[in-house]
């Protein structure tokens, strides 16, 4: 198990290279997963091994409190997550700009990291980032409340107690502990909004990917309008879960982005006839007043 102490926290890290190894000019790619119900494995299996095999030096890690990284009581503010990532790059001896790929909250973190640590970033790939100039903390709270509903539903609890398999129980219990035993919920609520001025001054190339059927597709245009060098890709038939739904296309897209960006982006070809839709309970969610209380929030 590869573990690194970064910013005073023990982080689980997996560094992947092709068989030939990374060369001095191989793109270094850092992958940042989403919040609470996510961990290192989502990127490891979707883009991690694939981009490593294509010649990248890939760094995947579990965010603080997630997967196999240390679950501290506090330290879940955006500024803490950025310090963790900077500390991780320091600990790994990474001394040239990296390509950061983030998913969901990890993409929001990647964008904030690009603004704060611009010299350390070669490019940003933002997959389904919650992005707002006003009310970003509330948006984060809304995401958490969706997870809380899923976690605390009576039927779900009954299933976890009686019928669920070991893997499902472990995943759900880990998320419940993270929400119950840490300050992550209040820290998320305090997420500061992005500054339009800072975004307008960002000199880092940005690739933004959203699903057309995502509950946050309305935030895509604002991001693309504010960031000067932004390539926006919207995938038909896909939702917020696009990393999992359209893995094959994202592999092609990232190979283009990292190795062949002077050409037009690869066209999206839908796999099979599958279409994905966001469930109603996700779009109708109302953030609960106290996320740490673990109560089932009102819906609709």
């Amino acid at each position: 198990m590869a573990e690194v102490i970064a910013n005073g926290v023990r982080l689980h890290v997996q560094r992947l290279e092709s068989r030939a190894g990374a060369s001095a000019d191989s793109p270094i790619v850092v992958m940042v997963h989403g919040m609470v119900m996510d961990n290192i494995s989502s990127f490891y299996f979707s883009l991690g091994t694939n981009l490593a095999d294509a010649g990248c030096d890939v760094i995947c890690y579990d965010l603080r409190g997630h997967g196999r990284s240390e679950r501290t009581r506090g330290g879940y503010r955006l500024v803490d997550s950025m310090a963790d990532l900077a500390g991780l790059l320091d600990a790994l001896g990474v001394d040239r700009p990296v390509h950061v790929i983030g998913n969901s909250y990890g993409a929001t973190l990647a964008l904030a990291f690009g603004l704060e640590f611009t010299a350390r970033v070669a490019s940003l790939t933002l997959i389904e980032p919650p992005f707002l100039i006003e009310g970003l903390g509330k948006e984060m709270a809304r995401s958490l409340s969706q997870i809380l509903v899923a976690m605390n539903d009576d039927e779900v609890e009954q299933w976890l107690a009686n019928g669920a398999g070991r893997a499902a129980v472990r995943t759900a219990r880990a998320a419940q502990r993270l929400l119950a035993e840490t300050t992550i919920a209040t820290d998320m609520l305090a997420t500061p909004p992005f500054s339009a001025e800072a975004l307008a001054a960002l000199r880092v190339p940005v690739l933004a990917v959203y699903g057309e059927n995502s509950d946050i597709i309305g935030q895509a245009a604002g991001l693309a309008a504010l960031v000067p060098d932004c390539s926006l890709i919207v995938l038909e038939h896909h939702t917020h879960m696009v990393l999992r739904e359209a893995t094959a296309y994202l592999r092609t897209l990232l190979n283009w982005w990292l190795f062949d960006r002077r050409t037009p982006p690869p066209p999206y070809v839908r796999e099979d006839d599958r279409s994905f839709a966001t469930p109603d309970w996700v779009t109708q969610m109302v953030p609960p007043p106290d996320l740490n209380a673990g109560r089932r929030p009102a819906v609709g």
Partner: protein
Amino acid sequence: MSVQATAGPGGVGRAEHETRVLGEVSEDLREIIGEEYVIDMDIAMESTFSHDLELESIEFVALADRLRERYGEAVDFVGFLATMDVDQVINMQVGEVVRFIVSSLPATETAGRR
């Protein structure tokens, strides 16, 4: 331990080789899953990671980590996993990983390092 191959591919040597590698993969799996869960679990070539062993995807990350450490550069796990998605990985049988390891190692390769 060192195992000499005594027959060509598919012969007795290969079967012995597979048995030994299955033992090594099983040892890593038991450590990852935890002995309390695997006490009655028979890990065989046909066992699936998802259904039979109920492996979480992050546990497969841990398995790949251990196997990369055990077999070193001779076994290209990154390349092996590069074209699969997470469902394909987790739905594999243990034997698919074992056979990949065996096919990667020279026939006279000594046992894994741990």
